[in-house]
């Protein structure tokens, strides 16, 4: 019962905030509304028993990506044009059709990884996932390569970001 209430609360938060993010006139407000959506999704992860994923969601998306989006907005000149209704309806139609297809065609038996029937209990059965995930990443016979290689891609992203965001140098800057 409590989990159902929590689900309704946070799922509702996610949906309402997503709608605000979509339809609010100010992009900054939209960005802040995303906060609620991302937190709501974090709760869904939590209720599915994926506690580490929920923490990741809060740390990366709520803490990081949202800031990135806000800074991105600061870099963009304001565009006060209205959204065209035709575009909104097209988007709604496409996503709606996709969701409908997903809900009707994907019977619960299709979920091999975690059958749908078990979902409501998952949060109560599951044990903390961070430790098994950590073991899987660092043990040599499972995901070690992915773990170590992730550092290389993060490094490349760092170098690329510093390069892209650097000021343009003129020739007279030489020797600085």
């Amino acid at each position, binding site marked *: 019962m409590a989990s159902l209430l929590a689900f309704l609360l946070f799922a509702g938060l996610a949906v309402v905030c997503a709608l605000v993010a979509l339809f609010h006139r100010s992009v900054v407000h939209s960005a802040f509304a995303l906060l609620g959506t991302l937190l709501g999704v974090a709760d869904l992860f939590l209720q599915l028993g994926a506690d580490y994923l929920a923490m990741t969601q809060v740390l990366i998306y709520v803490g990081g990506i949202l800031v990135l989006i806000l800074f991105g907005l600061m870099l963009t000149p304001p565009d006060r044009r209205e959204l065209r209704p035709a575009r909104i309806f097209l988007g709604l139609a496409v996503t709606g059709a996709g969701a409908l297809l997903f809900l009707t*065609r*994907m019977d619960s038996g299709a979920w091999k990884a975690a059958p749908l029937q078990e979902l409501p209990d998952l949060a109560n059965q599951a044990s903390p996932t961070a430790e098994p995930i950590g073991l899987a990443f660092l043990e040599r016979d499972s995901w070690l390569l992915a773990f170590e290689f992730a550092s290389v891609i993060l490094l490349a992203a760092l170098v690329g970001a510093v390069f892209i965001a650097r000021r*343009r140098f003129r020739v007279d800057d030489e020797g600085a």
Partner: protein
Amino acid sequence: MPGPLTPSDWLLAAPLLWLAGGVVAILVLDAFRPAARHEAGLAFLALLGAAWSLWPLAEAAGEPLEGIPGLPVRAFSGMLEASPGNAVVGLLCLGAAALAGILSLRSLCRLESGRHRTALWTLLLVAPAGMLVTLASSHFATLFLGIETLSLPLYVLSALRRTEEGSVEAGLKYFLLGAFASGFLVFGMALLYAGTGRMDPGAVTAALEGGALARAGLGFLYAGLLFKLAIAPFHLWVADVYQGAPTPITALMAAGTKAAAALALLHWAPPAGPLGSGAWALLACATLALANLTALNQENLKRILALSGVAHAGLLLFALAALQAAPGSGASVEAAVNFYLVAYGVSALAAFGALELLERRAGGHAEASALRGLGRRFPVAGGILALAVLSLAGIPGTAGFLGKYFVFAELVRSGEVGVALLGILLTLWSFAYYLRILVVLYMKDAAPAGGPPAVQDTPAAVALWVPAVLVVLLGVWPAPAHLL
């Protein structure tokens, strides 16, 4: 429990360690001795080291084309899997990065008074590392990491000429569409995992027997891979990105990314079964036709070569169609694909490399009008470009011909003679625009020399001979080809 790494783990990790070590060494040296220009040397050392550590595996590709290629090596409990033939394609990726580096020595390295060098060389090492992981991936984790690791450096490198609008546009376009494609890829993986509970290529087989969920996932997975491979209808970015990116980077993209994505697709292709060969053959024909049709109207040689790359990727799908039509042909199809990739790779490297040298003589333009008659004025670069174009077209005596021959032979052997004939016709159609490049190069009324006089670039001129010689060598002496 953590046991020690096995020899096969080390075998496949060693090239990656060389490349990562090179990146680290460059960055550390740059931090403490920014004035010393060690980057290029270290990068070439790392590439050489990686090639040297990959060599034993490539050397094991001893069996002839008809037989079974050497056993694939599995490492990290099935995260990576590479056959000797794959290792040869891996060597091609390393070579592509090396050639891109050599071509940049006198041009890109000097942009904005050389401040880009660190970024350029580190990213030039990370990209082939990603390619190696991608082409050997046999797990969702390595497939995704590999594709991201090869794409991310290329997004940045495409935008290396920050003062040129085309270059920035290329980087941005590639990045946005690439991110979109990665989204498809991950979503597909998630659905496949949800539907089958597996993360290895076995998920594909299981998905075909499974429900709609897994099949949808399969669709998304292939959409992501076909984007990287630039198959119609996901090929629209290619012309713009290849044109806008600096030409050495274009060469790396054409040879390396394509090879890595193609082998990944082959690894993750469904085994012969319910999907049938029709879908792949249809995609291949559509890609070839669209690429040919578009290439005929292009004025820019880089765009023509980019669309030629699209056509070549499309032709590769015929190999997948053959795989579908004839169960049990896996080994020989894979050998044909490996050879095809190497043949296309060296041809593309020679073509874009020579084009880069000619472009510099024409003031940085690759328009047909700017390159008119340059083949006469610069016989070596022009000759290499002409040779590469002949190979791309598939004239007998070149590597490109044999590559196409092997693929179509697989198709005929699998019983799809009609499809093979259609493919050959589409290939013949492409001669039209290859011929156009030759005509432009050797036109009578040469374009007036434009722009400032180009820098004498001995390293590039020398390095360009390597792919050029390989084009001929693989074409007339296919013995090394049979090693694949």
